[in-house]
């Protein structure tokens, strides 16, 4: 599994604002998919994919699976919460910031996947203990806590188009691989424990 290619495609998918971008991201994902399942799925029609994507992640109706960490991590289950602030702080610590501060919540899935790519690039250049610890924290105590809940929300929102089911399955598969390889912060003190 070419993890960076998968991550780039996942990031592109969740950042997409129209069907064309979604189809393109899905195609890139299919190419990078080690199982080949995504390629076997029928190529999604851009219109259908876009409308389904909006129903699940954007609106204007009740959003079935909001792609924001705070909805799953904060007891308030709303946007711009503690988890949003935490995500922004993690980006800040590695020298990054939201392109739309204050209007796009920092913990949107696409931004978090972008941060994952940034961490991976930094770690390749050489991991200090601090960087490794921060990465483990972001992965195990943040992403690995909310992304499975998000994926479950998508699965509950039936019927979901096969392409989105596959995208979320690849997201989950990446997360499982990544967490399986990396020890969590301070062993059992971190891990799957919910920060809240």
């Amino acid at each position, binding site marked *: 599994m070419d993890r960076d290619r998968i991550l780039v495609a996942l990031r592109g998918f969740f950042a997409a604002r129209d069907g064309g971008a979604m189809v393109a991201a899905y195609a890139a994902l299919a190419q990078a998919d080690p199982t080949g399942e995504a390629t076997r799925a029928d190529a999604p029609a851009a*219109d259908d994919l876009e409308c389904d994507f*909006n129903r699940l992640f954007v609106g204007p*109706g009740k959003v079935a699976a909001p792609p*924001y960490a705070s909805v799953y991590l904060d007891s308030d289950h709303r946007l711009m919460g503690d988890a949003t602030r935490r995500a922004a702080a993690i980006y800040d610590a590695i020298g990054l910031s939201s392109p739309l501060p204050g209007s796009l919540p920092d913990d949107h899935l696409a931004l978090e996947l972008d941060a994952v790519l*940034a961490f991976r690039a930094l770690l390749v250049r050489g991991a200090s203990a*601090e960087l490794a610890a921060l990465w483990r924290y972001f992965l195990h105590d943040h992403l690995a806590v909310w992304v499975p809940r998000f994926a479950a929300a998508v699965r509950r929102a039936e019927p979901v188009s096969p392409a989105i089911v596959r995208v979320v399955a690849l997201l989950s598969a990446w997360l499982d691989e990544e967490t399986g390889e990396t020890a969590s912060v301070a062993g059992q003190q971190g891990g799957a424990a919910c920060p809240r």
Partner: protein
Amino acid sequence: MPTMTRRHIERMLDSAVSRRSFLGGLMAGGAMAALPNGLLTPAQAETTRQVWEGGYQTFRNACPRNCYDTCSIVTYVKDGVVKFIEGAPESSFTRGGLCVKGNSYVRRAYSPDRIKYPMEQQGRGSGRWKRLTWDEAMDKIAKKILSIKERDGSLLGLALTKYSGNFGITNYGIEGMMSSLGYTTRLVGTPCWPAGIDAQSFDMGSMWCNDPEDLPQARYVLLWGVNPAWCSIHTVKYLYAARDAGAKLVVIDPVFTQTAAKADEYLQIRTGEDCALGLGMARHILDKGLHDAAWLAEHALGFDEFAAYLRENITVEWAAQKSGVPAERIRAIAEEFAGAKPATIWIGYGMQRHVNGGAAVRILDALVAMTGNVGKAGGGARYGHLQTWAFNYHAMLQKPPAGSKGWVGTSGPKGEFDFAAADSGAASGGVKYSDRALNINKTAQEILDAKDPAVRMLWVACKNVFSQDFDRAKMLKAFEKLEMVVVAEDFFNQTVEQADIVLPITSIFEDWTINASYWHYWLSINEQAVKPLHEAKSDLQIAAALSKRMNELSPGSCTFATELDSKEWMIREFNKGIYDQFGLSSWEDLRKGPAKAKLVSSASFSDGKFATPSKKYEFRSELCAKYGHDALPRYKEGRAPYDKLRLLTPHHKFAIHSQFQNLDWMADFCPAPSVYIHPKTAAARGIRDGETVRVFNKQGEVRLAAKVTANVPPDALLLYEAWFKGLAYNVQNLVDDTSADMGSFKTGAPGVAIHDQFADVARA
């Protein structure tokens, strides 16, 4: 380095200084700038850092949702995010507290379900939505407007319906946007309070209530068809203060409300028979000689004729038979009311939503006047006021483009807040054009009937048509006639379901405006506390965006500013009159907290001067007669029943009309609607508490759970009007668009007989 615990990491992350130094030299010089195609951008300048680590920034806001209380709010912001809000302590009315709805504002702004982007539906009602950029949305809308103008030669095919979903002064910029485009069609009038406004205007020259903060001076309070325990919680403290000082609180209502439960006495009146009860009391006061002959001689016109009418036509027994209130209680309450000085009546809005509602308000006014309680602190016929609304309406008052064609003839006011009603019609080739006025209370019928030209496009702002306008089935038909529907909203309600394009609207925290009250006398500024979330824009900014695109496509086609600073436009709404009235040296004083109008007296009409033709209180109003009503406050029959039971659809405590009930906090307490049925009525139909029933009439039906309770009278069904997220529930399935008696004098269209509705119920 020792093993780092999660707590270490989180502590580091919470401090800007430590997180910036955590990775040491690695991050110096923007190491991340080299990453290709990323979304996140390098954090460079100090200003991009989160600087708030301790205290909060505070901002001034206000609740703009058409509520008596219009609470002044203090908003606490950290890192560009609203953390919590409180009632402003400076306002003696709000006194540091908010209601359950107000306290939910932070959740409202940050709800994951808030509408985030301009979106277009692929077929109305399909639920298939695509995102648009603001440029794309404005382009589609502007092209449609230009095509209408080309087809019809005017913009009368473009209609605006806007009301009280947000009562901010700069929200009138959406009316301004329409005027800037040309002469358009306006849904005019108000479903809220027009019959009562006209009634008080006929009697006293204007609707003008005492300061509610003088209620503690009252020695007797009749709460007539009003439920402040739910609908004006901040007034309740003044009612209690009055009682502590010896006043008696009497509630007159068909429903045993939470206010009734707290009163000293509750009279269950037959719905719509307020005229009879009021006249019965008046007759008894007259018989006992308890009227204030001296005040009447000096300040009133036509009292003798009213007295003669009472003597010849009204008896207490008749009033008792009509109203269902025992004659003995009518006499007792009348004597107590007339004997207490001062005594006051708070006239609710529900009681004038009847075919005889304006007549009823005139009769209650008469009770207050004949006992000499008008113009007295602690007295008065309290209904509402517009004394503190004399802003410039700079955003609203815009000129049409040169050469615009419109409706031929004069137009009336465009609602009670149209302070420029006289300024309509512009000369163009000798013809005077104006906007086309359609009755907002018959929106569906008016859209169906409009021709030459038809209404082709509807713009909906500050309003939820499918929840607040009448006869839902007819509204769906009317929408079929519309070629384009644009809705500016913050949540996906039943009107957005029927929209072609939805535009995300800002929360109260995200743009500037001003908020006045129609009940108390405080004025609040609404500051921008945070950036608009996602891509939301205010009505004012939407108007500018549309004007920009209109002028790009067709230069000169819209006179509205194409770019504007909302704060600057808010400042332009102030004038010397407002500054003097509130004792302000500048609008900036309001950043320190809300201000209260400097009142000569807490009482309205304290100088005994009335703006009626005679300058007196008019028991006999020729103006009223001119508008087709009785000159005297006489009995007027209610609407004949068209089904077995009366149908009441008042406000719920968790909602203001269709707002707030959709939020999760409200849903926790009230997840689903119910119909409230008296035990006798339920038993006669074999209905048990909690089971699903069908409420139906000639308009349609609603299915919901039955709540069996003696709090409602046996002859009535009660369903609270509200929009529940994700539920099809809608009381407008059952309410028709029959007009109330009054409203066209001051608001451009008669009110609507919301509570003169009938239905039956059966097990589903």
